[in-house]
């Protein structure tokens, strides 16, 4: 009885399928981002809420044909221009309009981008491969795009003002 069981066991072991491992195949990677996507999105929202509020007020002030509530937008516009003229807080305008959105772009980019450099080729030493992976995280991508628009708008404003002043 025991011998029969042993034979069956040996047969089962012989018929076991061993998984095939191909060493040439591209190895699987764990693509870890540097920062947490959810936390970066939350901080990003707070970083761009002030410039978004300011831009919204400016656009409404200039482009709104409905004159209801324009005093609100005009007051906001006056506040931001007064920041430039006040001695110790004149740096606050550029910080809000440029530095905060750039920080938002950085932290959200670090949360969704994975970069990998590895050696490829037959001898694993001849060619270097640089691969960038972007995770599709809607909130992070949206915050990056909004921040780019804010920074772009501010740069465009500074450039046009500089050109008009020099002319």
């Amino acid at each position, binding site marked *: 009885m025991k011998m029969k069981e042993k034979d069956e066991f040996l047969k089962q072991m012989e018929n076991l399928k061993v998984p095939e491992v191909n060493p040439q195949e591209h190895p699987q990677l764990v693509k870890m981002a540097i920062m947490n996507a959810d*936390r970066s999105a*939350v*901080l990003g929202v707070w*970083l761009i809420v*002030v410039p978004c*509020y300011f831009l919204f007020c400016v656009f409404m002030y200039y482009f709104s044909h409905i004159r209801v509530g324009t005093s609100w937008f005009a*007051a906001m516009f006056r*506040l931001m221009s007064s920041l430039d003229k006040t001695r110790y807080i004149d740096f606050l305008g550029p910080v809000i309009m440029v530095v905060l959105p750039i920080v938002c772009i950085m932290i959200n980019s670090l949360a969704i981008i994975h970069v990998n450099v590895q050696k490829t080729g037959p001898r694993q030493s001849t060619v270097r491969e640089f691969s960038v992976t972007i995770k599709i995280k809607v909130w992070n991508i949206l915050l990056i795009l909004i921040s780019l628009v804010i920074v772009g708008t501010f740069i465009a404003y500074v450039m046009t003002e500089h050109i008009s002043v020099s002319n």
Partner: protein
Amino acid sequence: MKLNWFTRKGVIYWPASAIGWVILVIAVAYAVYTFIDIDSRSHSGSDTMINFVFNLLLIGLIYTIIAYFTEARKAD
């Protein structure tokens, strides 16, 4: 160093310890003080609100930055 002062629910950080509550109370007290200060110097309601909302958002930003670095991390 692990600091578990805040916990996050959505986009808002809530205090999770005594120090967290102290920071929240200071932020709220400063916001109230700012409102009273702006109101005493402004000429109209919209002037007060504009300046106050602007300051409130900045206070919220600073509070969130503190909470971001001191929040309780969930074990992944």
